[in-house]
């Protein structure tokens, strides 16, 4: 071991740490849109919220450029599985059809970056819900079980 390890940090150390930071920023950058997606989540101001995980092998950004006409995404949380199918409407908006498992009637909200007000829907006894026309952009689904169940929020996805 070198004997200099007990010395106070000097300019050489600070310069070296700057370069270490630069190199990790270059080789493994944080996804650029991550802070925005986190802010979306925090804006709910709901400490008890459960964040659903994206099902294995799926990509939230796939077809963000509109190259696909239809895609299906599954989100999983401890209490709820949410599957959604996204279809592009002729007018450029998208249609979101969803299923909840286990099937249950809950309030479902879709927060979008295009509007301050969330779109609202309710699932039926089969756990189905739909949003017919959703503006494209970042969106996040929130299922709010009535009574004592915890809200489940999906990661933000790009429609």
């Amino acid at each position, binding site marked *: 071991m*070198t004997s200099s*390890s007990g010395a106070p940090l000097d300019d050489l150390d600070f310069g*070296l*740490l*700057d370069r270490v930071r630069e*190199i990790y*920023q270059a080789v493994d950058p944080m996804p650029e849109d991550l802070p925005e997606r*986190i802010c979306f989540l925090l804006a709910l101001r709901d400490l008890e919220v459960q*964040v659903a995980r994206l099902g294995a092998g799926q990509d939230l950004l796939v077809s963000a450029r509109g190259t696909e006409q239809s895609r299906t995404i599954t989100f999983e949380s401890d209490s709820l599985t949410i599957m959604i199918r996204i279809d592009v409407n002729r007018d450029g908006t998208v249609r979101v059809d969803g299923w909840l498992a286990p099937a249950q009637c809950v309030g479902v909200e879709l927060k979008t970056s295009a509007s301050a007000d969330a779109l609202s829907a309710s699932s039926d006894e089969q756990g189905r819900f739909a949003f017919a026309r959703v503006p494209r952009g970042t969106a996040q689904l929130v299922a709010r079980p009535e009574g004592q169940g915890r809200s489940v929020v999906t990661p933000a996805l790009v429609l």
Partner: protein
Amino acid sequence: MPERGRVTVRAGQQDSGRVPAQAGRQARGRVPAQAGRQDRGERVAELLEAARAGSDEALGAIVAEHSPLLWHVARAAGLSSGDAEDVLQTVWLRLLAHLDDIRTSAALTGWLVVTARREAWRVRAAGRRQVPAEGEALDTLPDQGAGPQEQVLIDDQRRTLWVAIAQLSARCQELLRIVAFVPRPDYSAVAAELGMPVGSVGPTRGRCLAKLRVLLGMDPEGSLI
């Protein structure tokens, strides 16, 4: 060049240290547009206060500024990108519950690093979607063949540094990666958590940084500096 960046940062620190507190307050009161030059710690404290009062904008600014640090904490723990994102979401959600207790930049940085690290360990222990941290990043270094001369030179420096970092222990790699993203005035707040040695006047170089300096030829091995 690294030298230039270093000088700039130092100058800024000295300025903020020399300005009398009262003059600083007056300047801020009169010229809010100069927020960029404001002492970082005070700026973060004001953002925290605004976030406590319910400002999504202030909270967003805090998230934007500190998320890269948390990303590298999680990735340094060996998590996949997806798991790292989950860790960040969890940590920031948890901060909402602790906003009342955290009032300074140092407290915020310390709390964030500790919480992110514990959460990263928990997720890693759960063993979900784990990927090895080693050997995945070097391939993504910029291609040395392309670009103007200066770019190639920078890439050469990077490659040299990268090779040196790779010779450090996993523990040192993790430590240096995290510390590199911690704002300097907040070093002391995270030092204990990271096992970073602290001398009488603040954090000291420590074995990891000393070893890196030797590997890069900055200090002759075993010399008494």
